[in-house]
C-alpha cells in the first residue's frame, strides 16, 4: 500500500516538473519575440495577427482620401487624414462567401456595427470590377459605401474580406488584416490601437438586430390597434382579476 502512495507521489512530481518545463519554455519564446521587436509586445502580437498574408508597411505612403462612386453612381470623396475619428475601411465584395456574413450583419444592424469613435467605410471595387446593383442590394442605406478599385490598389488589398484601420490625425495605417465577424474585427482594432475600450463597447453593447426591432414594432402596432395598451391586464394572464 505504501509503495502505491510513493509511486503516485513520484508520478505527480514528474508531472509537475514537466509542466514547469513547458511553461518556462513558452516564457522564453515570448521573451525572445519581444526582444526582437521594437514595439510594445501587445502591439507586435496584434500586428502579426492583423497582417494576414504580409507584414504591415510602416513606412508606406499615407493615403489621404478614398475617391470613388456610390453604388448609385454619384462621385464621392471620403477623407482619411485630418479627421475627427479613425477610419475602418472594410474591403468587401458581393461575391465572396466570407463577405456575406459581414453584409448580413450590416443589414441587421442598419450599418451600425462599430462604436461611434470609429468611422466605417465599406469599399467594394469600382464599377469596372464589381456590380453596383449587387452592392446596392447588399449595403444598408445608412452605410458609407465607396466603390473604388483605386483604393484597393492604394492599400495593396490582397482580397476580400480585408480591413484597414487608418489613424485620424496622420492617416497612418494602425492595423490591417482579415477576420470572420464584425466583433472580431473590432477586437483586432482594439488591439492595434491599444484601446481596450473599443472591444469593451462591443462586448457590452446588447444591440438588437434590426429584424428583431421591426418585429417588436409590428407587434406593438397590432396590440395598439386592438386597444391593448401597456399595462393592460390581458398582458398578464396570471394576475388577471378572478384568477388565483
Amino acid at each position, binding site marked *: 500500500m505504501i509503495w502505491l502512495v510513493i509511486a503516485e507521489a513520484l508520478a505527480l512530481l514528474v508531472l509537475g516538473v514537466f509542466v514547469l518545463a513547458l511553461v518556462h519554455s513558452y516564457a522564453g519564446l515570448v521573451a525572445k519575440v519581444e526582444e526582437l521587436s521594437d514595439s510594445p509586445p501587445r502591439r507586435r502580437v496584434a500586428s502579426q495577427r492583423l497582417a494576414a498574408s504580409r507584414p504591415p508597411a510602416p513606412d508606406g*505612403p*499615407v*493615403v*489621404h*482620401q*478614398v*475617391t470613388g*462612386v*456610390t453604388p*448609385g*453612381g*454619384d*462621385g*464621392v*470623396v*471620403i*477623407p*482619411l*487624414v*485630418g*479627421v*475627427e*475619428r479613425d477610419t475602418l475601411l472594410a474591403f468587401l465584395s458581393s461575391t465572396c462567401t466570407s463577405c456575406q456574413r459581414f453584409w448580413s450583419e450590416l443589414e441587421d444592424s442598419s450599418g451600425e456595427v462599430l462604436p461611434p469613435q470609429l*468611422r466605417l467605410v465599406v469599399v467594394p471595387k469600382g464599377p469596372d470590377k464589381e456590380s453596383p446593383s449587387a452592392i446596392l442590394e447588399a449595403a444598408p*442605406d*445608412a452605410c458609407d459605401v465607396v466603390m473604388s478599385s*483605386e*483604393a484597393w490598389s*492604394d492599400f495593396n488589398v490582397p482580397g476580400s474580406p480585408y480591413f484597414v484601420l487608418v489613424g485620424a490625425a496622420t492617416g497612418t495605417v494602425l492595423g490591417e488584416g482579415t477576420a470572420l465577424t464584425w466583433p472580431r474585427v473590432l477586437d483586432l482594432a482594439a488591439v492595434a490601437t491599444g484601446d481596450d475600450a473599443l472591444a469593451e463597447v462591443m462586448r457590452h453593447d446588447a444591440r438588437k438586430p434590426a429584424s428583431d426591432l421591426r418585429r417588436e414594432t409590428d407587434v406593438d402596432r397590432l396590440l395598439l390597434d386592438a386597444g391593448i395598451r401597456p399595462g393592460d391586464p390581458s398582458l398578464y394572464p396570471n394576475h388577471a382579476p378572478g384568477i388565483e
Partner: protein
Amino acid sequence: MTGVRRLESHGISLLVPVGWEARFTGPAARLDDGGHAQPYLHAGNFALPAIRAPFGGGVVGELAPPHVFVALLEYAPEGATTPLFGSHGVPVRLQASDFSASTLQRSLRGQAGFQRFFHAADRAFCLYVVLGGRAAYQRGLDDVNALLWSTRVHAVSVTS
C-alpha cells in the same frame, strides 16, 4: 499625395482638399428655392450627414466655427442664358469681405454666407458657401478657393 484624385461626376470635376468630404447627388425633385433640380455637389471639412437638403438644410445648423460648407447646385440648362446666371465661370478667389450673415438661407449665430449664380459650359449653377464661424475664415477659405480653382465644368450632351 497618395489617394488624391480628381472627383468626377455629372460632367464636373474637382480636387477635394485634404480633410474634406465631398459628395455628388443625382437629380433631386426640387430645390429649396423652387428651381428645377439637377445634380448637385456638397463639400465640407467635416463628415457630411447622410440626409441633407440641397442648400444645406440638415447641415448648416450643425456647423462648428471651423467648419465650411460648400454647395454647388445646377439648374436647368435653359437658365444659362438668363440674366440671373449672367456671371461667367466658377467663382474663385473668394475673400472674407464677400461673406455676409444676410446671405444665409437661415440666419445662425456666427455664420456667414456667400452666394452667386453663374453659367459655365452652357450650364446654369448656383454656388453657396457657408462659413461656420471666425475660425473658418483663414484655413477654411483657403481650402474653398483651392477647391473652386480646381473645378472644371464640361458641357453635357443633350439626349433626345
